[in-house]
């Protein structure tokens, strides 16, 4: 299912929603059909049988009761005739009353559901019973009148009718039994029919279940497994993975999104790889450039205050010094951005962050004739965050602004404003470009949304907003189409810092003999740095000695009592990190008085440099006054007034 390269094209099929809707409907239909068919097959026959049983039972029961009453009276009448005595009046009355009670005919009552053959037989028996009653009445009448021969004659008719009634009743019973058996057979047939139907529907249900399982396997399980495997590979760093898009259903769309996402990630990883390589290259360059810059600035700064230097020469030297420092600052800023190191959340001066970014992009602004107004006041409260990440936010916003106004007619303006409101520090980046369409504006912070076409990844604003939210801030677009774009980022204000104490040991104008009485060891493999630096320190009254690397420094330290060491980090044979480790082990007091110089300040983030105290690392090219002040702070000496 997974493969590298372009995913195969997808066939268009029914969506998963349609498939599962259909399968669900089919399942419901099958179950409903099963229930309905069973009900339609069995219920009418069962109901018919039940409805049939009730009147049949009633009719048979009622007729049997009537027959028993009549039979009892017939017995009495027979006894009376046999005895040729009418019996007492009360007995006659009882007999006639019994006949009257039995005279309620039953068989013609209109009960539905009784088979007509049975009804006919019952009716015949019922009517014969009525005739029998009438004849018994006559027998009793004859007996009452003493006409016993006539009574006996009539009694024979009674016997004949009695037999007929029994025949009719038996016939009705047979008819009823046959009908009952027929209905039971119909019910049995219906049950068999229902069994067949149920069996077929069960088979259909099983087939549907199998179909459902196969569909689930084919349409969901396999694509999900492929996606899962692909995600695992992405997790291991393989961004070349692509999943097959079998069809344009929901999972197909998901696979397409996955492929698009890995493609973007791959491009981004490649970009970041290049970016990282650039960083590495830049670090090397920085080291190589900062050292000459340090040499230039040291030479210039050490010469600038010499009395024999003319005013014109001093102005030139100051120009050299200023440009060298500017070059160093730009280089270090670039390094800081390219190799930010591990995030470190701390209170940050937002104005300083913005200024650094503006400086970083100043060349771009100049090339594209963009006037940048940085109105972020240094008096704004600080914010908490990682400096590199905060810089990234503003690099993204300002880069976007540059892109937005680049094609716009002049004057092109980008304005950065800052203000505080309700405990939040707001910074707005506004450009006078074409603005952002309302449709795009609604999803501008979604990943992969870009207005730059192939040049953009569509991740800048998305990442910027995420970074702002990581520190409980946010990034919003407040833009009117056609009138430029205005992005406002805000952060919670950190507790306001006290006034920044002006360090007593901070940079001060160079003072003669400021380092008098101190013995300072300068360790740098670059003689062009080491020597002017030693010369400068000596001019401040220090006894300055130098060494070309760590090993040479150790030799010097065995010969001299040194108050402070200015130590380059990257050197051949024994570098600054190794020397510092030796000092911490053998001469810890002296190790506390080591200042480090680095052509690549970002190398402090390397693992082996973690032992170095960051507050004592000075980036090349270092301001010599700062260097002197730092030395004084280390040795506990104050500059003379």
């Amino acid at each position, binding site marked *: 299912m997974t493969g590298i390269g372009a995913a195969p094209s997808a066939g268009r099929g029914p969506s998963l929603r349609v498939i599962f809707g259909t399968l669900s409907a089919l399942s419901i239909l099958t179950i409903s059909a099963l229930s309905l068919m069973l009900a339609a097959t069995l219920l009418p026959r069962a109901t018919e049988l039940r409805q049939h049983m009730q009147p049949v039972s009633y009719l048979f029961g009622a007729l049997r009761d009537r027959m028993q009453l009549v039979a009892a009276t017939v017995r009495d009448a027979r006894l009376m005739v046999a005895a040729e005595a009418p019996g007492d009046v009360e007995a006659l009355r009882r007999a006639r009353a019994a006949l009257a009670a039995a005279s309620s005919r039953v068989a*013609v009552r209109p009960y539905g559901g009784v088979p007509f053959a049975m009804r006919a037989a019952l009716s015949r028996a019922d009517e014969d019973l009525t005739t029998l009653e009438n004849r018994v009445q006559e027998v009793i009448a004859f007996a009452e009148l003493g006409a016993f021969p006539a009574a006996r004659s*009539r009694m024979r008719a009674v016997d004949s009718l009695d037999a007929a009634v029994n025949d009719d009743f038996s016939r009705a019973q047979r008819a009823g039994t046959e009908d009952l058996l027929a209905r039971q057979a119909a019910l049995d047939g219906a049950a068999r029919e229902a069994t067949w139907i149920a069996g077929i529907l069960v088979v259909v249900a099983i087939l549907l279940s199998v179909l459902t399982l196969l569909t689930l396997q084919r349409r969901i399980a396999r694509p999900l497994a492929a996606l899962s495997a692909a995600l695992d590979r992405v997790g291991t760093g393989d961004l070349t993975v692509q999943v097959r898009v079998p069809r344009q259903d929901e999972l197909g769309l998901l696979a397409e999104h996955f492929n698009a996402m890995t493609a973007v990630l791959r491009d981004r990883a490649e970009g970041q790889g290049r970016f990282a390589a650039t960083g590495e290259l830049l670090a090397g360059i920085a080291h190589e450039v900062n050292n000459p810059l340090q040499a230039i600035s040291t030479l210039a700064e050490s010469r600038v205050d010499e009395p024999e230097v003319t005013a014109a020469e001093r102005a030139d030297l100051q120009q050299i010094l200023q440009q060298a420092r500017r070059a160093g600052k730009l280089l270090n800023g670039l390094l800081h951005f390219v190799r930010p190191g591990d995030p470190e959340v701390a209170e940050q001066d937002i104005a300083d962050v913005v200024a650094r970014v503006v400086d970083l992009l100043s060349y771009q602004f100049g090339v594209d004739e963009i006037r940048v107004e940085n109105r972020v006041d240094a008096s704004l409260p600080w914010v908490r965050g990682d400096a590199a990440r905060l810089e990234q936010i503003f690099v993204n916003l300002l880069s976007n602004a540059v892109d937005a106004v680049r094609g716009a007619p002049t004057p092109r303006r980008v304005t950065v404003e800052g203000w505080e409101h309700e405990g939040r520090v707001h910074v707005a980046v506004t450009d006078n470009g074409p603005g952002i369409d309302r449709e795009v504006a609604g999803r501008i912070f979604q990943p992969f949304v870009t207005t730059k076409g192939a040049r953009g990844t569509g991740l800048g604003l998305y990442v910027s907003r995420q970074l702002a939210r990581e520190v409980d801030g946010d990034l919003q677009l407040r833009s009117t189409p056609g009138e430029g774009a205005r992005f406002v980022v805000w952060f919670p204000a950190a507790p306001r810092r006290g006034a920044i104490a002006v360090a007593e040991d901070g940079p001060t104008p160079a003072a003669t003999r400021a380092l008098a009485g101190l013995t300072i060891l300068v360790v740098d493999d670059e003689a062009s740095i080491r020597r002017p630096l030693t010369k400068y320190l000596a001019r401040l009254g220090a006894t300055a000695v130098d060494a070309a690397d760590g090993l040479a420094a150790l030799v010097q330290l065995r010969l001299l009592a040194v108050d402070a060491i200015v130590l380059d980090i990257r050197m051949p044979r024994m570098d600054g990190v190794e020397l510092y480790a030796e000092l911490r082990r053998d001469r810890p007091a002296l190790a506390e008085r080591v200042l480090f110089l680095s052509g690549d300040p970002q190398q402090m983030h390397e693992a082996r440099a973690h032992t170095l105290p960051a507050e004592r690392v000075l980036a090349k090219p270092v301001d010599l006054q700062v260097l002197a002040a730092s030395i004084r702070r280390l040795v506990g000496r104050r500059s003379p007034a």
Partner: protein
Amino acid sequence: MWWQGVGRSLGTLTLAALAVAGCHSQARSVAIGFAFTYHLQTAIAVAREEIALRKGQGPRISIVYDSAVAGDPADVEVRRAERLAAVPGIVAVVGHSGSRASLAAAPVYNEAGIVQVTPNSTSRLLDSAGPWTFNLAPDDSVEGVFIAAFVAERLRASRVTIYYENDEYGTGLRDGAVAALAQHGVAVLDRVPVDQTSDFRTLVAASLTRGVPDVVVVAGRQLETGSIARVMREQGVPRAVVAGDGALVLPLLTRAAGPAADSLYAVAFWMPDAPDSLSRAFVERYRRAAGELPQSADAMSHDALMLIADAVRAVGPRPAAIRQYLRELGGTRPPYEGVTGRIAFGPLARPRLVMAHVVGGRAERVVGP
């Protein structure tokens, strides 16, 4: 097997489709069954004539006559009903002859979904015979009250003997009369079941030993009623004999009664001397067809036939529609104006009962509208 069920269903659907396709032609030919004894054939002839006169209004209506014999057993009535229910195009049946026969046939029509209109059956059991059965005559409780009132108030009797035919008609009328007589304070001395083959002399003689009545009430038909009247006179106890509607079939009643015919009174639902125009017209047509006067059963049967024909014309030949039409009479529809009066099956139903006295072989109205 299940496929047989499917096959049956398909067959039923096919028949239904054919029935729908053929309903137009069937709608032009409608049959009304008539299940009565032969002596009512003139009533049919008159009804046919009237229906023919209205030709062109609705479908062609034919009357299918399945002649009965008085006293046919119940199983014969059931088979007769099955025959009529199987007649193509039949929508309703007028009949059968009397309560016993009507009750025996009612399940057939109710299961077949065919309207049954009973013209002169009085058993109250017909009320629960089924939704397709409609009874024109008042039930036996109403008739019993009428007879009791006549016996007590007009004949001023205080003791009666009741002879009854032991079927639904006779026992129903007996029970209605006994209850009503008790309310008038009239004593019932004896209740004697009879049928056409009874030994009336013995039964009457034995009954007279139990008490001599002022009036004899007979809940039976013409033969039993006439025979009892005759035997009473032969026994030297001439008494007025009051009978229910089943007895007033002339001249059979007078023949059975012989010289005692003048002692007979009988209930009728209609008399040919009714003064209204519908009655006069019916009597005229009947006399023209048969050369004699119609009797109550003729008029009732005629009304039943014409009522159904009217329903068919009004709502078409569907039995369900005809049934609904009959139900609505006296409710959402006005009562049907028949020869025997207004016919309705709702609250407006008003029984018209007449007490006739047989005088000189003819029935004369003595009580009633």
